């Protein structure tokens, strides 16, 4: 992702976002869809990006900020290159999701919500991604890992790092 580039006032990423805003601006109520795109482009929504969206859409920055901070999905802090989401939905909860989460926090030596020093992993939680049949489950980026045990979860992130770094 492009953390540093969010701070450069003009670059191709902003151009990309500007184009998307132009496509959406005449549709009714486009702000949330614009923020989704912005987060896809920049990885998160720092003040600079929020301000850009406000100016391009001709709405107050406060309105953009109020929406960004309301929804769990939008992030104002940069994250690591890969995000681990441990599901804390009901089915996962009754099958010991908290133990998995604690073990991963221990394995990565970070708090929940934190990012490893090398910016490789961010450890986060999810509300339920509907893989209840595979509880307890987690996702690394878009891939679901199900029927976890503490050991399986630890092994999964070690292997993920190994295979990703090889590429």
């Amino acid at each position, binding site marked *: 992702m492009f953390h540093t580039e969010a701070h450069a006032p003009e670059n191709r990423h902003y151009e990309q976002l500007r184009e998307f805003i132009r496509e959406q601006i005449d549709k009714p109520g486009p702000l949330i869809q614009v923020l989704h795109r912005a987060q896809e482009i920049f990885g998160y929504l720092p003040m600079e990006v929020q301000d850009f969206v406000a100016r391009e859409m001709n709405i107050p920055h406060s309105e953009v900020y109020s929406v960004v901070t309301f929804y769990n999905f939008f992030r104002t802090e940069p994250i690591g290159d890969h995000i681990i989401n441990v599901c804390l939905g009901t089915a996962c*909860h*009754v099958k010991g999701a908290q133990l998995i989460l604690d073990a991963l926090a221990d394995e990565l030596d970070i708090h929940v919500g934190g990012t490893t020093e090398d910016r490789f992993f961010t450890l986060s939680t999810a*509300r339920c991604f*509907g893989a*209840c*049949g595979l509880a307890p489950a987690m996702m690394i980026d878009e891939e679901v890992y199900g029927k976890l045990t503490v050991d399986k979860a630890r092994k999964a992130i070690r292997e993920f790092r190994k295979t990703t770094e090889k590429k």
Partner: protein
Amino acid sequence: MKKRLDVLVCGGAACIASHSQDFKNRLIEVVKDHDLEDEINIIETGCMGPCELGPVMVVYPDGAFYIRLKPEYAQRIVEEHFLKGRPVEEFLWQAPEARKIVEEKRQIPFFEKQHKVVLENCGRIDPENLNEYIGNDGYQALARCLTEMTPDVVIDTVTSSGLRGRGGAGFPTGLKWKLARRSAGDVKYVVCNADEGDPGAFMDRAILEGDPHSVIEGMAISGFAVGASRGFVYVRAEYPLAVRRLRRALEQAREAGLLGESILESDFSFDLEIRIGAGAFVCGEETALMASVEGHRGMPSPKPPYPSEQGLWEKPTVINNVETLANLRHIILKGAEWFAAMGTAKSKGTKVFALSGNVTNTGLVEVPMGITLREIVYDVGGGIPGNKALKAVQTGGPSGGCIPAEHLDTPIDYESLAELGSIMGSGGLIVLDEDNCMVNMAKFFLEFCVEESCGQCSPCRIGLKQMLRVLERITRGEGRLEDLDDLERMAGTIKATSLCGLGQSAPNPVLSTLKYFRDEYEAHIREKRCPALVCTDLITYTILADKCTGCTACARKCPVNAISGEVKKIHVIDQGICIHCGACFEACKFDAIERR
């Protein structure tokens, strides 16, 4: 052209997570190697239901049901089954009792008691292929509405079918439409609520992924009935596959002239747009959902005005749940009487449930209304693993409650579940056994609602937080008996005074567990004991002198150095230092640590 064998590989979310696509790709390769492409039709379908067994595959015409597939099985399946007609028995589903091989999918108990209406196509057709949907009477219902029916007749049909909203509250769908149709104005909207936020619910996800056209057709029918030409599908950002399949389906429907201007040469024009949510549970509430579609913070607003009078951008709006919409085509094609013949006096049709928790067959099931919880848990769900005792069934997510084992024979409908202190909800059904602590469950749901409260009204924002503090105290062993009355009193106030459905229903999990499992609360308070051994602060670990070999494994694992003892001598845990983490319990190979 009909091929010799139809091979359906499940592409539901759970099977994909179990790598069904690796298996499918390998199968395609092997079929190609044997030059069987002209004889074998391989299709990736939506969710077939038995998620726990995935990846699964059915081979028709005989209906052989393969489970837990791996890419390396493909070779044998092709050579023995596809070429020589002998299903590979060791990969087929087998009845647990007799290790009897069941060759036909429909004879498997998991499927036997189910009655698939909404899920008819899920797991049977390729969700990315419009022609397969059309081949199964797809868009016939819309065509009938446009050519043979008036909007009023459509509304009457839906009304007399008895269909009620499947999102949880159970409002009669026909009545909702009638109110919106009667509202003045040229511009009206229909909205599909696909913001399935209850943890433990994945019915809508499976429908959108497995049969997206049935939802699109349902929305077009509702648009025709109420006089709307524009619709929105509000879907969770957490469901990328559902969004992808829905997008594809929308493109196909537009290309085929089933959405857009003058559909099927009638004067009805209708189109749809997808709006992706951004992770806020409260947006499942209809007024909050509309605020979010409009691009604002998803804050609920007072009713009246109801959405049917003033909804999106203050225009009359009908909001229906995914499963409700997927029922419509069947009602139009098979008639109101057919639909009303299923179910109980006040709850008609079928209901899709997401069965999970401590049950053998987790997955997606569709059953007629009026079936008992016992039939769902034991017949369809295969009972509790490890022969443990069932304690309760949780329905309705954070707005629902826990139904104890003694009420398992209650027939399921909207009214009977409400009488028991729970709700039908959207369909999450979580089985809890003796190892689940009910106080912890109540705390879990309350934590959820505290975090998801939008914060605009104080009973919900402040009241739930106070209830949570009390529960936290109880689970730490610092509760007082008066706390239980306080909890009930606060719950009553919050239910009576909160602005929206989230706050009004958030105390339900606490109230229903207090009603049926008060003894568990009292054990936490009086005896400082968690009977299910879940609440960590109340668990005590002690080393049994007669079993300890002095191997030091526990002492080495203890993160706070609470265990002392020399090699080959009995170890002791210092209870003053112990943080109850259980690391020693896991580490001990001699069962020498007792957990109480």
